[in-house]
């Protein structure tokens, strides 16, 4: 699904964040990416999303380079991703409206689908509102609902376009503990329902262990090698209550504290 082949990236006139970095994600995997602030976690997501371009090396998603965002990648950010002037339903339906906006262009050429699908229906919009439990909030504006409800809206909007890759950048870090656990559980459920490949960037150790069956640990920039911790038990609903969960957390903590091997 994601192939990073000796990718180098630096922001203008700054030291590189990634230096000949190689990494592979297979379809259907659940990844967490963790590391200290400034290690390039978000940059990595933006590269995969097509919002940034590598300076050198090759980055492919689904076998294709990503010179611009592709509609079949969903991106969920910590906050401010919703249109403040649109209601919950309008925010979700944005994907449908954009699909119709680009109706003439859909299906043109080969390669990744750049525009949202043109055939999304009103019923599908409502179905996702129901699934995410935000149907009652449909006429509220983002400023009128809680942070957790906003993220549910963002998730509904992303899933409406049937992505095969879902990228999440610190999606739950501004939420209170219970809401965060709720949404983490929901994320696991939705992944199992849809089979979407997920990459969740987080700075929270427990979140990484709960969501990531494979965990990419980033150290201080520049990152050259992918340090991966295997965590195959993630995704079980009661994982948080098992001893192995805490063992993984300990392992991850020491990996973060020391230099990645």
């Amino acid at each position: 699904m994601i192939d990073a082949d000796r990718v180098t990236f630096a922001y203008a006139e700054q030291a590189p964040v990634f230096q000949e970095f190689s990494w592979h994600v297979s379809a259907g995997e659940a990844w967490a990416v963790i590391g200290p602030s400034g290690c390039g976690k978000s940059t990595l997501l933006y590269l995969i999303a097509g919002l940034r371009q590598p300076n050198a090396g090759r980055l492919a998603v689904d076998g294709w380079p990503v010179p611009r965002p592709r509609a079949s990648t969903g991106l969920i950010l910590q906050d401010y991703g919703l249109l403040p002037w649109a209601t919950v339903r309008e925010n979700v339906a944005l994907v449908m409206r954009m699909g119709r906006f680009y109706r003439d262009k859909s299906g043109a050429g080969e390669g990744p689908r750049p525009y949202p699908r043109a055939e999304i229906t009103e019923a599908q919009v409502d179905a996702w509102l129901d699934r995410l439990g935000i149907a009652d909030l449909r006429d509220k504006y983002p400023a009128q609902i809680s942070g957790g409800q906003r993220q549910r809206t963002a998730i509904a909007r992303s899933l409406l376009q049937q992505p095969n890759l879902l990228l999440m950048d610190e999606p739950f870090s501004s939420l209170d503990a219970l809401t965060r656990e709720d949404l983490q559980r929901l994320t696991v459920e939705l992944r199992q329902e849809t089979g979407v490949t997920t990459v969740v960037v987080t700075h929270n150790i427990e979140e990484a262990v709960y969501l990531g069956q494979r965990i990419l640990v980033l150290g201080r920039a520049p990152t050259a090698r992918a340090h991966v911790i295997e965590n195959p038990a993630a995704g079980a609903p009661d994982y948080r209550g098992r001893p192995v969960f805490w063992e993984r957390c300990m392992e991850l903590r020491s990996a973060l504290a020391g230099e990645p091997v």
Partner: protein
Amino acid sequence: MRRRDLALGIISLIVAWQVLAWIVHAPVLPGAWDVLQALVRETPRGLGRHFVISGWRVLASIVISMLVAVPVGLILGQSPRLNRIFSPVIYIVYPIPKIVFLPIILLFLGIGNTSKIFIIFLILFFQILVVVRDQASILRPELIYSVRSLGAGRRALFRFVYLPATIPAALTALRVGIGTAIAVLFFAESFATTSGLGYYIIVESWGRLAYPEMYAGVVAMSVLGLLLYFAADALERRLAPWMFLRE
């Protein structure tokens, strides 16, 4: 504002006016009742026509300035490079009182409607342009990233993000600018023309010391301003309901 409060405001203004008229007790300040009579009498005899002409001039300038300033502001606001090129010019021209160009505009465009519409356009254009540009340039990058990641190209970004994000600001700028627009119209109409409320007030009534008629003209001009202000306000509430949320 509630209708009741609005009515109260108008009534207290009229009462204050009437009281002042009694105190001054001179032909130069007729009472509200005299002026209302003049208004009714004069409306079919020319005042109505002048009102329509003035209204048309302001409305045309508003529509033209919105149609030009909003797209230009949007383009500058979302392109830092273009903005860097043009912002010094805008920065210098923005504070110049455009009214001083009136004699030049009259020379070029004559004394008809075109010159009046153009001078008001010039004023509104820069006010709307600057607000729209600034509004578009401070949009959160997270919002742009999210919508782009949904598959929005440049056109969809304009349509679904930049336009709805800046329309309310443009309307606010317009609402604030309407007062200036009408002031400028009054000045531009007060000479070198034969129509419009400015002409009616200055040439037809003030010039021949017809005070109630002059006040009727002033009231008509105020009504014109109020109507436009209300219209912009209503439009803002209609197009930007999220700006008026009450928790």
